[in-house]
């Protein structure tokens, strides 16, 4: 399978990473090198194999559905690039 420019652009878009048009061919080359390496996996017959879900045989613990932590607005917002009036601030979302 070979990744072309358009596919590279689509993947960049899905990943929300801006890639300039001029950089797309090199990116597609990188993808092809890595995917070529990954392609070896197709040699194996895995038809009767379960995909791994958890590497250690343990059941995920559950806890009561109650508030365990909260009321930390100041701490939560402290690292925001832009926070105003107790909210994260972002560029206008709705026209």
């Amino acid at each position, binding site marked *: 399978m070979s*990744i072309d420019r358009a*596919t*590279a652009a689509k*993947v*960049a878009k*899905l*990943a*929300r*990473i*801006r*890639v300039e048009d001029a950089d797309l061919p090199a*990116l597609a080359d*990188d*993808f092809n*090198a*890595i*995917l070529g*390496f*990954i*392609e*070896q*996996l*197709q*040699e*194996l017959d*895995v038809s009767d*194999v*379960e*995909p*791994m*879900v*958890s*590497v*250690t045989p*343990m059941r*995920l*613990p559950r*806890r009561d559905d109650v508030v365990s932590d909260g009321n*930390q607005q100041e*701490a*939560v917002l*402290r*690292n*925001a*690039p*832009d926070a105003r009036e107790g909210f*994260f601030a*972002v*560029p*206008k*979302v709705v026209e």
Partner: protein
Amino acid sequence: MSDLTKLTIAKARDALRRGETTSVELTGACLAAIDGADALGAFVHKTPEIAMDRARAADARIKAGDAPPMCGIPVGIKDLFCTQGVASQAASRILEGFRPAYESTVSGQLRDAGAVMLGKLNMDEFAMGSSNETSVYGHAINPWRATGSSRSLTPGGSSGGSAAALAADLCLGATGTDTGGSIRQPAAFTGTVGLKPTYGRCSRWGIVAFASSLDQAGPMTKTVRDAAIMGAAMMGHDPKDSTSADLPVPDFEAMLTGDIRGRVIGIPREYRMDGMPDAIETLWAEGRAMLADAGAIIRDISLPHTKYALPAYYVIAPAEASSNLARYDGVRYGYRAKLAPGDGVTEMYEKTRAEGFGPEVRRRIMIGTYVLSAGYYDAYYNRARKVRTLIKRDFEHAFASGVDAILTPATPSAAFELGKTHSDPVEMYLNDVFTVTVNLAGLPGLAVPTGLDGAGLPLGLQLIGKPWEEGELLNIGYALEQAAGFVAKPAKWW
């Protein structure tokens, strides 16, 4: 006492308890060594005030006679660990300015045990790399140089700063994390010891996530005994990490008897790679002989799916990374790109992530995005998860047949020159060929320095243990360490 920074954790602990030195003296000596070693690029955020405060508190605690083993011991913390109020940016621009409001469980346990944080250590960006060359802070540099050469070598990665700091005696222990070999490969490149515990032994809470099903923190130290001491302080159950194992942590140090008579050591034939340097082949043979001399039984074994481990890893790890790193969007913490008039929220995401992530991280996020995208999920991601099942099964069969531990080389070469392998990402990935299987199977792995190559550079062997059997693994490592008698240190040039 002279040469305080050269002490092992065990010796420093004993000296502190006997009153022969103080944590303030030890810490002061380490801080001075760190200030004199900027050329190594190991410490990227120094925290001398915190260090001296904790050292004074540790001395008071030792005086009161109720100090745990790590009390007063100066350590470095990898930049991947969130440390309260102290920069924690995973060596990435995208976390520029981030000061966590909380402390990771592992660094918090060390702090509560009285360990002294000297500062934050360099690493590959988001732990993605094998040479510490993807760091936003610049390279960490190996204190070791080839005989007669002044060329800069990599300390390995991703825990390159941790390994460089230890090898240069800037600290007595360091935290590392290991997703595909990031503790063991740097340890092998610097003549130090690195333990990747069983998946679930150390809490992942507060450690910046790379690939959550593979990430595991562990100690990096100068000796196996130190790995036992520091490792025990880092491990333990944490309800804040749902994959954290609710199992008691044994006294690993008490298990270091060096008696390995009758233990069965497996030698996997698939780890004999084409083109492997003679020095590695010899090292491995010597390691087998040392363990046999100590009374172990050496047995050839097969781990037939070994060759598929790296390709499976390079599906699973990027897939998980693409999901974990989706949180870096310029909204809640860290870097936000400068926006042009009219830019909306999508442009903010795209520009922030393009400018905030380095090339290798961008590449892995996008590979992960691709293998998880509609139409490819089964062909790549699900298939890789099935192959992971087969790789784990290989180890289960070996252990079920009576093998107690497995001996392999830690790396396919000694430390290489910085700047050598940038052009080909796949070539860099091959560094992890002997270590990545262990992460995929969730097993504990230990790198022990056992020799030097022809150029005078350190080489290490890897021991792989059964799940939760770190104590047994460390004891076999201890026997190997005693037999190898590795005492070489890099000549100081920095």
